[in-house]
């Protein structure tokens, strides 16, 4: 106990030096926490975007469909497969889809489009599709019409009440053709989706493609991305060939690569920040040891074992790190929480770029615990490494030289 008291009092012999050194750690932790929180927040927004717009956190389909996305590789949802989904506690919602390509024609123009047969209620729970309805109404289970994405509708020059003709190839080469009234116009934040999507009920889609009861995929949702891995592991274990389950990350490798690339950039910035902090702490510790050489010599001379002396110096180093890290984390939590609740709105080109990417133009922040405890771990590791210096010094101190210092 006395070691800790001496170490603590030693810190405050030169209060400004301790305050400045701990202050550098404080700001390092604060900036690093905010930067990490912002990074994680933007990843969460991107992932949530991808997940909520379309892919869901996970999808189940057949192995053949994964290799070759044709209507012939669709499947019928068996009771056993559905019970696996229902029994997995982490899954909050799931919804079936039948998705295939077709030509869409209006009076004058024809364009290739993606036809998606959905369960309106289920789909809305998963992707909140209803909120993208710009005109007209959202589908219900008895709807016979279609919802057309805005750019496609503009291209085809159709509006609510007009009809579109869909024709293409159905299940096992059967001719697929039908005439559908436009009951809704959808406007997504993503231009890619706006150019090609047509939604109809699952029943209508199965009829169009002559694929009764068949699905191209089942989309699964969990609470958030952090809850997905155990659910995915369980499903991968339970779902056997010819079916397979894939996560959004496996379905969207480009997004994962982009996040990884951005993480590497952030890591570089944080490394620079922590290198500066490291040298700040090291400078202070070097001074503290060097100017107390005689005092350390006296302590050993009067009977303090070098191990005990090194413990005092070790505690001093750890205390400096702790003061900075704890205060940094204590300030960064409420500050981050404020930005978490009130994301910073972006304007100008940055906002336009984000809208083009299909992301709402806000700078989001994350409140994931690892945003904060990672900083504490880093500072702890830095101070542990730096504390090696005074420990070595206390063991190598030559008494006669120290007492003359």
């Amino acid at each position: 106990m006395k070691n800790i008291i001496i170490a603590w009092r030693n810190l405050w012999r030169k209060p400004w030096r301790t305050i400045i050194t701990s202050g550098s750690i404080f700001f390092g932790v604060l900036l690093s926490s905010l930067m990490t929180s912002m990074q994680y927040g933007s990843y969460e927004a991107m992932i949530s975007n991808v997940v909520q717009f379309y892919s869901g956190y996970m999808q189940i389909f057949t192995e053949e469909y994964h290799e070759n996305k044709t209507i012939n590789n669709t499947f019928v949802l068996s009771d056993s497969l559905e019970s696996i989904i229902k029994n997995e506690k982490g899954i909050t919602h799931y919804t079936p889809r039948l998705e295939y390509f077709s030509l869409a024609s209006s009076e004058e123009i024809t364009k290739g489009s993606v036809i998606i047969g959905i369960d309106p209620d289920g789909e809305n729970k998963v992707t909140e599709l209803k909120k993208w309805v710009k005109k007209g109404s959202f589908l219900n289970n008895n709807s016979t019409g279609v919802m057309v994405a805005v750019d496609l509708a503009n291209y085809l020059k159709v509006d609510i009440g007009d009809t579109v003709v869909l024709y293409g190839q159905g299940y096992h080469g059967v001719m697929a053709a039908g005439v559908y009234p436009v009951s809704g116009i959808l406007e997504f934040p993503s231009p890619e989706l706006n150019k090609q999507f047509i939604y109809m009920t699952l029943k209508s889609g199965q009829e169009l493609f002559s694929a009764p009861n068949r699905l191209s995929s089942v989309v699964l949702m969990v609470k958030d991305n952090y809850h997905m891995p155990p659910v995915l592991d369980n499903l991968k274990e339970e779902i056997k060939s010819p079916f397979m389950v894939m996560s959004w990350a496996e379905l969207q490798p480009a997004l994962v690569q982009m996040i990884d690339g951005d993480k590497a950039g952030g890591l570089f910035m944080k490394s620079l920040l922590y290198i500066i902090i490291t040298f700040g702490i090291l400078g202070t510790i070097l001074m503290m040891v060097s100017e107390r050489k005689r005092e350390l010599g006296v302590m050993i001379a009067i009977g303090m074992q070098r191990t005990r002396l090194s413990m005092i110096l070790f505690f001093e180093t750890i205390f400096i790190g702790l003061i900075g890290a704890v205060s940094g984390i204590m300030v960064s939590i409420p500050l981050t929480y404020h930005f978490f609740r009130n994301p910073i709105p972006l304007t100008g080109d940055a906002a336009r770029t984000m809208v083009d990417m299909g992301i709402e133009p806000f700078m989001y922040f994350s409140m994931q615990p690892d945003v904060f405890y990672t900083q504490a771990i880093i500072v702890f590791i830095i101070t542990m490494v730096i504390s090696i210096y005074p420990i070595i010094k206390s063991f190598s101190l030559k008494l006669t030289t120290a007492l003359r210092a």
Partner: protein
Amino acid sequence: MNVIEIKSLTKIYNSSEVQVKAVNGIDINVKEGEFTAVVGPSGSGKTTFLNMLGGLDKPTSGEVKIGGVDIWSLTSRQLIDFRMNNIGFVFQSYNLIPVLTAGENVEFIMQLQGKPKKERAQRTKELLEAVGIGDRINSRPSKLSGGQQQRVAVARALASKPEFILADEPTANLDSKATTSLLELMSNMNKKYNTTFIFATHDQRVMDKARRIITIEDGKILKDEYFNRD
């Protein structure tokens, strides 16, 4: 009874060009309760001699026995413990631990010895009162005068109940009044506790109090004289 037995004590410093014999084959015994001054000009080897005697600097050859124990045959850890239990140090610059109060400085060594709290508190109070600064028990060294700090240093040196106390130029930083007072104090402690004191000094006032004066020159004992001061 001999507290200290020194045989053929030698310390040679090797520089790149020459060998310097700082202490050159000293043989000497010190009895319990002696009040001894080691004197000599600067560079005579008295501090090196005291350092080897106090287990702070390893001799090149020779033997230092304290209470029958050859201290330089001990391991580094054993030697630190030995110093703690058998040797008290009083330094020229007081060298108190600045973050501890006067009382804590005195108590600290007893804590290292593992003495119970009650005993530590009692002895700390007793020693600080004996050295005349019982009222400054809670003051940090920075709040004490040089003379008061050196009194705390004496109390700290006595705290572990050592075989003897080594004092290296203890009066060098003190004014005349503080020097007289400190010498009086150490002399009283010597008589009261029968503690052996060995000083390295240039100070005539210390020499005037010493009952034995060992004069060192060029690393050898030039004179070893006893005086009756009573």
